[in-house]
């Protein structure tokens, strides 16, 4: 069992609602993994405090009187007068001209056709790759607009975010691999070190390129894939 599976099932495990096999494998994992054991402990503390807490500490004293006061305040507020609406008999009576109506219709048609084109492109263009590995070239118009107004990440920003996530995972697996390292024979240790060196060389190469040219999507993509390989290497060796 890995940490993700364990943490996913911790809540059900604490409720004693897991089947015996899964429960046993979680117990075994918790004995071996300090991080998951800490998560389990935190969960247990929260659950205990919920059980121990008295309802009087959650509900305010004399709650009925409080609700009455709130109700009185709402009712005592002066009601708004309904706005008088000036009735119009039609668009033409507002002084609209045929040319103005025509230009409005034309504008609506133009905007809707543009939106249709953009929508179709957005529907067909995105490939199977996830957003983190998307390049600025493959970014759709809609995404570009969103990132311009700050509503979504640019490919560079999402790459940075992804990079930080990968680094965190690498640190975790590296710690576990180092704990296991004493159990490997010399051949394993040498092969591991040589491969890690190669990967680190590649990471440093791509990082240097990206520092000089943050728009270099290919180096970003390669950095992402190299960090994944490093993570896989560490994970594979931490299981030995």
């Amino acid at each position: 069992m890995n940490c993700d599976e364990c943490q996913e099932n911790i809540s059900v495990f604490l409720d004693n609602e897991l089947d015996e096999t899964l429960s046993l494998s979680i117990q075994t994992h918790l004995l071996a993994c300090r991080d998951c054991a800490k998560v389990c402990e935190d969960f247990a503390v929260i659950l205990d405090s919920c059980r121990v807490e008295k309802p009087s500490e959650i509900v305010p004293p004399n709650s009925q009187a409080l609700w009455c006061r709130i109700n009185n305040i709402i009712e005592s507020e002066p009601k708004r007068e309904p706005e008088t609406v000036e009735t119009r008999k039609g668009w033409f009576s507002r002084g609209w001209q045929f040319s103005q109506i025509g230009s409005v219709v034309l504008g609506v048609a133009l905007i809707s056709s543009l939106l249709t084109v953009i929508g179709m492109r957005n529907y067909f263009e995105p490939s199977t790759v996830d957003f983190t590995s998307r390049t600025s070239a493959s970014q759709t118009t809609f995404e570009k607009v969103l990132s311009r107004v700050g509503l979504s990440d640019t490919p560079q920003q999402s790459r940075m975010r992804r990079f930080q996530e990968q680094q965190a995972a690498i640190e975790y697996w590296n710690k576990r691999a180092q704990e296991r390292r004493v159990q490997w024979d010399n051949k394993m240790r040498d092969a591991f070190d040589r491969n890690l060196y190669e990967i680190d060389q590649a990471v440093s190469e791509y990082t240097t390129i990206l520092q000089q040219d943050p728009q270099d999507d290919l180096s970003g993509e390669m950095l992402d894939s190299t960090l994944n390989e490093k993570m896989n290497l560490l994970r594979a060796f931490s299981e030995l």
Partner: protein
Amino acid sequence: MIRELKNCLRFLSDRKTTILLWLSVVFFFAPVSNEVLGQKRFSRNYPAIKNVRLQLLNRSGTVIVEGWDRPEINISAYLESPAANIAPQSLSGTIFIDLVKDNQGRNGIGNVNFLIRVPRVSNVDIETRIGNLSVTNVGGNLVRACITTEGDITLTNIAAGAVDAQNGIGDIFFDGEMRTGGQYRFTSMRGNINLRIPFSSSFRLVATAPSTRNISLGSFANPEMTFGDGRRVIGRFGGGSAALTVTNQRGSIAFIRR
């Protein structure tokens, strides 16, 4: 007493050549016999039903998988000492061998070298931490060969619908056909990737060698292939029905006409 000793010495001097010959024979074969004695052999046969799948995870050693015409799977393993635990499991047509799980926490286990024979139309999924992998004469839906660290991958006479070969440091050689709509992926950190495919193949190509920029398309080069700055080649060959992705972080990529 002295006379007996003298007789003995005379006997030895008379047969000096024969004794020397025998001693040399003993010394010559001594290391070989030690090696044989230090190795255990494991062998097992399984009847093959439809949709055979071999799933093997080795720690270290060579793995050779060969396709044959018999409806059975034959697993032979040579275990160097200290011998690893090996416990294959057969479940609805899939043979599972997981030496990492079977030997977790054990120190200094010897190499396990496999020779596995499977029906030609089998799915093969093999992985090792260190060592060479070789698959020959297999044409099922999937051939996957993965080396976590070092070793060469050799895939010959392959006609699978999907091929995935991945290693750290080492060469990858593929010699086979590409099926319509198939998916083929070759990934290495450092080494040479050589692909020998028929000229009648049809594929969409993404080949990347960012460090060396050494991508040789050979006979497969055509105006539909774009080289950009040399780090990546994207293009189409023939109708472009299969997807071919080749990535070599710090090595070369070469295409050879079959």
